[in-house]
């Protein structure tokens, strides 16, 4: 009788430990998801791709456009007057 009770208690403890482990794992995965994606998603998925380029930045024509890397610490890229057109006429 006592042995049966002990076995039941052990089974209960094992089940409880499994549940706690599951909760810990789920919580950890959820925390990872929040860290990587942020708590509030804007509703606009990132369509810009990452910053990697699909062409050779060492191509002489591209290097000529990029100019020398002379130690600048901040860059401001600027434009104006697109007047509603994401693409120019030609």
């Amino acid at each position, binding site marked *: 009788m006592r042995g049966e009770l002990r076995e039941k208690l052990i089974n209960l403890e094992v089940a409880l430990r499994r549940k706690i482990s599951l909760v810990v794992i789920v919580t950890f995965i959820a925390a990872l998801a929040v860290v990587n994606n942020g708590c509030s998603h804007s509703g606009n998925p990132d369509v810009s791709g990452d910053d990697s380029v699909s062409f050779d930045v060492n191509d002489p024509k591209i290097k000529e*456009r990029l100019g020398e890397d002379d130690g600048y610490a*901040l860059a401001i890229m600027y434009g*104006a007057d697109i007047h509603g057109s994401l693409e120019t006429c030609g």
Partner: protein
Amino acid sequence: MGGLARRVSYIKAFKNRSNTEVPTLLVDAGNLFSDDRFNATQLPAEVMTKNKWVVKGYGDFHHDAANISYLDLPYVGELLKKDGLDQRLDEYPFINRLVSANIHPLDDQHREPLPYVIREVTLKRGAPGQKVRVGIVGFSEAKPVGPNSFETSYAGFRIDDPFEAAKRVLPELKQKTDFIIALAYMDVGSAQRLASDNSEIDTVIGARQLSNMDDAQHFNRAAVAFAYNQTKYLGEMRVYFKGDGKPENQISRLIALDSNIPDDPFALETVTTAHSEFTNAQNASAQTAAIAHKPDALLSASDSPFAGVETCAGCHEKEYQIWTQSRHAHAMATLERKSQQFDNECVRCHVVGFQRGGFQSQLTTPQFANVQCEECHGPGKQHASNPSKGYGAVATPGACIQCHKQPNDPDFVFAVYWPKIQH
């Protein structure tokens, strides 16, 4: 030249080259939305579509701020309506990066534009680890309506004196930031005055650049540079910092966004989708106009004062043959290669009689596509029905410069171009 896909591609290459060590901000000095209302009082559906894609594209491709110019106000009025604003902000968060310190709504149905935004960057060069808070503030001149004459109320907004607004806003912004960029949609002299009158400003980015003027000018400690029209050349201001985290020097360049810069595939997808939606909207508008047969639309050949090149060829065969060999005769194909044949901003210089009773759209008036005889010589239907002398004199080069103006065709020289079509 230019375009979002090349612009994004260059910036990615720029970051990649410096191993992403250099924080890079992207700003627009104004006139980013079309205000083309034609004869209507409201922006037509196709223009609304174009503008919507600019807000979306600028947001998706990480523009940090854009200045609201007087030209932007018809569409900004739609964006800042309090009714439905939360939903629009959720869909287009970039609305909160449209800045102006001197533009205010005339009614209480619209929200005030934000005067500035603040971006924080961490330096990895000059003063590694130093956090720099960058304030980006916008100013616009009022709408010019004549020589030295301006309209200060436009499209439901009041445009205050930008210099008074600067005196009010800049001390407050200086308290909150380490570096101030002023976006200035105004003439060159006024942009320079903005820098010289306000020592808080570190960088002024002006607009309306019509020629290559690469080097930044310096007033107080501010560098003043001007964006190139339509961003065919991308402006690049390099900022150098001392070890104590203070800016030391600024150097600007204009980078040609020509075919040497490949399109970014992600941005190209956005541009292509935008084209598709815009084309559908414009075709729908053209069909509606054709059905309604509006009296000012002059959509049928019988209503038009233009005769068309085939009619001219009946008597002027030699001139017609010269024309067929010229680029004028294939002007529409140039646009078709870039899928721009439906964009009125482009079409107006690739057809005959746009919005003057000639070309309306490919759907309704294809006979007026390409730069035909009457684009320079004037409407010729009356002349064709009763030929007589006195028709067709062209004042050159003034007539050519209507389209071959500096921003569209910086290489245009009349003496070089004229022999190509001489007749």
